[in-house]
């Protein structure tokens, strides 16, 4: 068995829409390859503007979408060979998702602990007593700075967005995955709470779980990640050590991205106030039609 946890090998995804005659092909992900090593858990940031194919890439890693060409191998299992519910369960135990909007990922009609107990039962409970599963849930919640007492009997609307996102992370931890795919996990969370969630990812990595952190927020990506992939129009334009790529970007697109970050500093604000009316032409988003 190889040492690769995740092997993304020349993966492309083409969506087509329209009828037989007016068919349009949109290349969402274009020949992307990267690996995550099993022995070195890391936080891998995937950066790009909206529409660059970040989410499609995530969905393929989570096996919610099949690649048009290329191969995805997770922990020795080719995702294309997954057919049965049992296989999917095995995969889901290894890869857990965290989504963008915590208010969308929990059903507002159900109590939060229901999700936690359900996940616990699905993945682990065959071997465990009810009492110990309660302890395991409390443990997972403690890792994210909450406790079962705070969460039980509460509905999603009773918690703030930041707390809810922590519950989502605790739920993902319960399955004891090897990889967490977090798709814009902090873009709906307040700037002041963002950091406590991002710091949490570092704790999770130190538990030995790799994280794919998808975002368009370059500042948090710089702060937290070990390695970075910059994606544009579905293909990787630059990759490498996060600090190096963001400090000294080589590709003009990366430089453009970095320069667009609005820093909470007046020194920088004076230098590049985006106040000219020129240069606002175009949609700002790439045309993905070939």
């Amino acid at each position, binding site marked *: 068995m190889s040492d690769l946890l995740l092997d993304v090998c020349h993966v492309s995804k083409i969506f087509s829409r329209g009828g037989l005659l007016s068919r349009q092909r949109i290349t969402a992900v274009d020949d992307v390859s990267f690996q995550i090593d099993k022995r070195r858990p890391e936080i891998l940031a995937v950066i790009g*503007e909206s529409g660059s194919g970040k989410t499609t890439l995530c969905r393929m890693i989570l096996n919610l979408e099949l690649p048009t060409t290329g191969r995805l191998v997770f922990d020795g299992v080719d995702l294309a060979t997954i057919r049965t519910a049992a296989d999917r369960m095995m995969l889901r135990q290894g890869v857990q998702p965290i989504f963008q909007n915590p208010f969308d990922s929990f059903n507002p009609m159900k109590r939060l602990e229901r999700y936690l107990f359900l996940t616990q039962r699905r993945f682990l409970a065959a071997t465990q007593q009810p009492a110990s599963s309660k302890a395991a849930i409390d443990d997972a919640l403690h890792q994210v700075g909450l406790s079962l007492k705070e969460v039980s009997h509460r509905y999603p609307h009773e918690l703030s967005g930041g*707390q809810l996102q922590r519950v989502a992370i605790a739920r993902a931890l319960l399955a004891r995955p090897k990889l967490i795919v977090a798709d814009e996990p902090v873009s709906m969370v307040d*700037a002041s709470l963002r950091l406590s969630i991002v710091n949490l990812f570092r704790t999770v990595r130190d538990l030995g779980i790799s994280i794919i952190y998808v975002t368009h927020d370059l*500042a948090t990506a710089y702060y937290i990640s070990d390695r970075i992939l910059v994606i544009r129009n579905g293909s990787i334009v630059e990759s490498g050590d996060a600090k190096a790529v963001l400090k000294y970007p080589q590709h003009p697109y990366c430089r453009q991205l970095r320069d667009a970050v*609005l820093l*909470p500093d007046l020194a920088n604000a004076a230098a590049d106030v985006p106040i000219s009316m020129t240069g*606002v032409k175009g949609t700002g988003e790439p045309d993905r039609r070939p």
Partner: protein
Amino acid sequence: MHAQAVPDVPSEAVPPMLSVRDLRTYYRANRLGIKREVKAVDGISLTVRRGEIYGLAGESGSGKSTLLNCVAGAIRPPMEIVGGDIDFAFLSGYGGLHRAPPAEVARVRWRHLSYIMQGSMNVLNPLRRLRSVFVDFAYPHVGGTRQQFERQLHAHLARLNLDRSVLSAYPHELSGGMRQRATVALATVCRPDLIIADEPTTALDVLVQKEVLGMIRGIQREMGSSVLLVTHDMGVHAHVSDRLGIMYAGHLVEEAGTAEIFRNPLHPYTKHLISSLPRIGDDAPRCGLGGAPPNLADPPLGCRFHPRCPLAMKVCSGEAPAMLETAPGHRVACFAYNQSGGA
């Protein structure tokens, strides 16, 4: 840059564009005889001068959007204005849009007061082309013939560097950034005196965000309008706002020129907001604010920030600090600085 753009000394001769005095807005619920009051905005006073961008910052649930809704006159139960006045330069004597007669409201809306909303997809009708949206929103307030309006619209779009072909597109045919720029065009087509912007760039990525902000600021400078800009992103405020108000749990805790706030933040919450943000090139570890935002149905006594405050003193849990001036144009509500002469 910012400080020079707007004179820092308030001129007494010109009345401000918007003045809010001791506004209190509560959400009142009465379920099975149990009354519950959520004090979303509790005694806020602020003024927006002519030709300036006034920024409001604070976490979600601090009452920013409630304040904006009050200013825009969008009062729906259970929201209730319990006290205070809102005066506009173009509408005085009523104490707020919500108390003005409907004819006055219709006169003021869009012509004098317009609104850039957060979710452009929720503003633009998905079944109508953008031209119809512009006609629906703006035409009744402009007057003249449809041809004149169309010409005016083209000139306005040209000023914003938008192609006129967007007018014949449906919202789903445009990208998120393009839609948001269309809503900016929609809000500014009548050259209003006051524009309210509620998180106009939160859902956009960095490149588009920069464009949209440049557009808002450019058109504001050109028309000389005032803007009340709400966002929790301090980076946006540093680049766009002239003056900044920091809100926490329904109170205004600090107010000053943007440069002053960033150079010399006084309130511990403001300090936290500025220092906690990670920056590219800076490897210092940072931590989020501990604790949870207060429950506004049962806010902590005294200063509402004291349970999370690193400087909390005995007096903080007893009484609420008043908003006092520490330097010209710099007001702060914190016992550590200005109360009873001790600094």
